């Protein structure tokens, strides 16, 4: 019988500078990149980078809270799978992510409105 597993599902708040190094640590510890997403809440960006471990199905979410003009260093140098997620955050929210391995430069979805889910989009709506 495939036992169902009990798994951790945690959020770990970290500083923006330690994002890349923490991601690298997790990858070395056997974690796999699951997803990344942004949220624009109370004039700040909340970035969530989720890593799962498929041996025991643990889920660890790295949480970075930043001001809208803070630059974030891309984790694609250590996690190639994050390419689309970071491009998406940049395009839909306007999160300033630098050094993405494959930078679509706002041409991932090619939408007309700039950063519809970010600060400028919210003002218009």
């Amino acid at each position: 019988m495939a036992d169902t597993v009990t798994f951790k599902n945690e959020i770990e708040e970290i500083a923006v500078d330690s994002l890349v190094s923490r991601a690298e640590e997790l990858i070395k510890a056997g974690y796999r990149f699951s997803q990344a997403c942004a949220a624009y809440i109370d004039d700040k960006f909340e970035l969530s980078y989720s890593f799962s471990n498929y041996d025991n199905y643990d889920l660890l979410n790295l949480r970075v809270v930043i001001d809208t003009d803070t630059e974030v260093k891309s984790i694609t140098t250590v996690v190639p799978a994050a390419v689309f997620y970071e491009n998406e955050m940049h395009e839909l929210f306007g999160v300033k992510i630098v050094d993405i391995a494959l930078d679509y430069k706002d041409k991932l979805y090619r939408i007309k409105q700039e950063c519809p889910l970010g600060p400028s989009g919210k003002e218009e709506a």
Partner: protein
Amino acid sequence: MANITRSPWLLHYDGSSCNGCDIEVLACLTPVYDAERFGIVNTGDPMQADIFLITGGVNEQNIPVVKQLYEQMPEPKVVVAVGVCACTGGVFKDCYNIIGGADQAIPVDIYVPGCAARPQAIIDGIVKAIGLFQERLENSEKESDKVG
């Protein structure tokens, strides 16, 4: 030869639909519903298509694609908008990246409602499109006769 008519060929393009209508359109062309019994043939080539089946609303990026596909089709042609999204924008009408129904990009002749549109409704739309296509074909033949 009077009762032999041309078989209209059908082109299907997914605008920005959720896929629900697309799989129903495909279901129409496969055994159980089998719309091909009405003499249509599914094609992937716009230059040989007579009926254009479009699902989903249009957005900034696919408007040129939809327009191009429509322009590549030879005259006469019929456009069928399948599903509520292709008719008006549907649940996604308020989304920032949806301009509206397919009629925002190209002239639509037949609107098929539903979310997702049922195969019966799609077949009904296709049958109407075949009728309209024959009518347009006859009209264009009459006109070319006049000129000739």
